[in-house]
C-alpha cells in the first residue's frame, strides 16, 4: 500500500484545526499557551462559529496570538481587552467575542476592566491564563505568584507582608451576580485537556443563547522557563503547589455558585 492510498479523507481520524496556522508558536516548549490556543481554535471550528467570532489578544506572552489564530482579532493595550470586547459585543450582540489574557494583564493592570466587564455581565468569554509569573518580560512577580515564590522582582521569595497575597481573582469574579460560568482548568495532562475543551465549548454555547452573563475560564499553566524548571518538573510542581492554592474545578455554573473549598 502506498502512502497516497492511506492519505485520503475517509481515513483521516484526526487533523489540526484550520484555524491555527503553521507559524511556529512564540511560546516556550511545554507551556500551556500552545495547547489552549489549539483547543480554543478547535472548539470554534467544531461549533462552526469562526465567521462570527472576534478575539482580543492581550499584552503579555500571548500578545501575538493573532499571528497564529486564523480569525478576526484585535490587539488590546495592556489590561484593556475586556473593554475592547465590551465595545465590540455591544455593537455586534450576535457575534461571538472572547478575550485571551494572562495574569498580569487580567489580575493586575486590567483588574478594573475585568471586574466591571464581568459585573455588567457582558455576554463574552474571558480566557485567563494563570502561570503565576510575568513570562514575556522575563520572569517578574505576578499578582498570582505564590507566597514565597522567587521571581526576578521577588528574589528572596514573595513576602506577603509587603507584596500582598496571590490574588484569587477567579473566586472574586464568581461572586458577581451577572457572571454565568466560572471554572478553573489546566492543560497539563490529556485528561485535563479534554475537560478544558469541554469547558470552552460550554462557554461558547452559553454565549450563543444571547443572554447576559459572562463566562470566565481560568487555565492554570506552568511557566517552565520562568520557573526555571523542565516542562515535566514544572507540571509536577504546579500539581503539588499551584493546585493547592488555586483549586481546579467548576466554581460557578448557570449563575449558581458551586461547592468550592476556597469560597467556603
Amino acid at each position, binding site marked *: 500500500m502506498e502512502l497516497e492510498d492511506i492519505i485520503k479523507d475517509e481515513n483521516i481520524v484526526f487533523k489540526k484545526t484550520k484555524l491555527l496556522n503553521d507559524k511556529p508558536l512564540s511560546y516556550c516548549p511545554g507551556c500551556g499557551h500552545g495547547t489552549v490556543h489549539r483547543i480554543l481554535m478547535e472548539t470554534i471550528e467544531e461549533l462552526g462559529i*469562526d*465567521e*462570527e*467570532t*472576534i478575539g*482580543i*489578544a492581550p499584552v503579555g506572552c500571548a*500578545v*501575538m496570538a*493573532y499571528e497564529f*489564530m*486564523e*480569525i*478576526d*482579532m*484585535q*490587539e*488590546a*493595550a495592556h489590561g*484593556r481587552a475586556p*473593554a*475592547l*470586547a*465590551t*465595545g*465590540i459585543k*455591544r*455593537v*455586534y450582540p450576535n*457575534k461571538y467575542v472572547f478575550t485571551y489574557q494572562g495574569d498580569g494583564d487580567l489580575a493586575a493592570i486590567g483588574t*478594573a*476592566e475585568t*471586574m*466591571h466587564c464581568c459585573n455588567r455581565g457582558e455576554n463574552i468569554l474571558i480566557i485567563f491564563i494563570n502561570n503565576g509569573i510575568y513570562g514575556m518580560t522575563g520572569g517578574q512577580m505576578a499578582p498570582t505568584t505564590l507566597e514565597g515564590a522567587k521571581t526576578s522582582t521577588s528574589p528572596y521569595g514573595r513576602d506577603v507582608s509587603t507584596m500582598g497575597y496571590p490574588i484569587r481573582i477567579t473566586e472574586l469574579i464568581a461572586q458577581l451576580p451577572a457572571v454565568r460560568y466560572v471554572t478553573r482548568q489546566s492543560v497539563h495532562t490529556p485528561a485535563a485537556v479534554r475537560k478544558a475543551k469541554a469547558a470552552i465549548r460550554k462557554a461558547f454555547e452559553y454565549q450563543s443563547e444571547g443572554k447576559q452573563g459572562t463566562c470566565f475560564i481560568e487555565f492554570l499553566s506552568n511557566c517552565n522557563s520562568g520557573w526555571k524548571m523542565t516542562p515535566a518538573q514544572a507540571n509536577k510542581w504546579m500539581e503539588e503547589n499551584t493546585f493547592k492554592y488555586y483549586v481546579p474545578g467548576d466554581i460557578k455554573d448557570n449563575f449558581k455558585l458551586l461547592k468550592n473549598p476556597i469560597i467556603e
Partner: protein
Amino acid sequence: MSELRLMKGNEALAEAAIRAGVDAYYGYPITPQSEVMEYLMKANPEKTTGMVVLQAESEVASINMVYGAAGAGKMAMTSSSSPGVSLMQEGISYIAGAELPCVVVNVVRGGPGLGTIQPSQADYFQTVKGGGHGDYKLITLAPASVQEMADFMKLAFDLAFKYRNPAMILSDGAIGQMMEKVELFDPVPRRTDEKVAEQCPWATTGRKRGTQKRVITSLRLVASVQEEFNIKLQNKYKEIQEKEVRSEMLQCDDAEFVIVAYGSSARTSMKAVQIAREHGLKVGLLRPQTLWPFPSKQIETLINNGVKGFLSVEMSAGQMVEDVKLAANGGAKVEHYGRMGGVIASPSDIYEALKKFAK
C-alpha cells in the same frame, strides 16, 4: 427637516451624535461635560436609531471600548473633560497606531491636576502635539458656538472615516455649558452592517471563509516595519494638512493686527475687535476651526497682505502662540495674551492687551 432649538453646547453635541447616525457612545461622567451622557441616556437612542450608550467604569475603559467598536467598523465616540482625557491618552495613542476612526470630545477645564471646573484652553498642547506616546496626530476641531458643537460632530466623523484617523472635538467649559440657538441637521440613518462592510474592508467583524483574516493592532515589532508604518502615517498627515484646514476670518481685509483665537476666546475676541475698530485700530480676527491641521497658510497670506502682528488670545499660558510663531516664521510680531485657571478674559481685557501690542 432641520430643527431650531435652544440648547446647551453639550446637549447639542449629544443630539447631533444621534442625528449623525453614531453607533456607540462610551463615557464616564465628569464636569463640565456630564450633560453629554445624561442627554443621551435620557434620549435613549437604543430604542430609536439603535445607538448604544454605555456608562463605563472609567475613561480608560471608555476609550478602549471605543477602540473595540471602531475596530469593528462602527461609528464610536466618547466625551470627557481634561483630567479624564489625560486618562485616555494611552488609548488614543493605540487608536492612532491602529488607524481607527473615532471621535473624542474634550470639554476643557482648568488644570493642571484636578484643577477647576471652569473653562480653559490649556489642553491645546496635549491635543495637537501628541498627548499620548509616539508620532501621531489628531484631527482637531475647535467649536466656538453651540451651533458648531452640533455641526462638528458630523464633520469629525466624516474626517475620521475619510482618513482612518481619530478626531478630537476640542471644546471648553463655556461652549459646553452655554445655551444658544442651534439649527440641528436632519438625522442620518445609522449605517447597515452591509454598508459598514463596504466602507471598512479592514474591520474585524468575523472572518468569512476563503478570505484573509483581519487584525487590528498597533504592534509592529520589526523596526523597519514600524518605520514604514510611521512614514505612511506622516504621508497621511501631510495630506490632511493640505486638504482639511478650516478657519474663519473676521475683518482681516484691511487689518494691520490680527487676533488669533479659537473656541470661547474667539467669541470674546470678536467683541474686542469691535471695540478696537470703534477706537480706530485696524484689527481683525483669525479663528482656526481646525487646530490640527493648523491654518499656517492663512497666517502667511495675512502677512503678505500687510499684517504687522498677531496676538494669540488663549485661556492658557500661551500654547497655540507657538504655532502662530512657527507659521509667521519671523514675518510678523507674535505675542500671547491670556488668562488661566478657568478665568475668561473679557473683551475689554483683550482690547487693553491689543492696544499695548499695537504700539
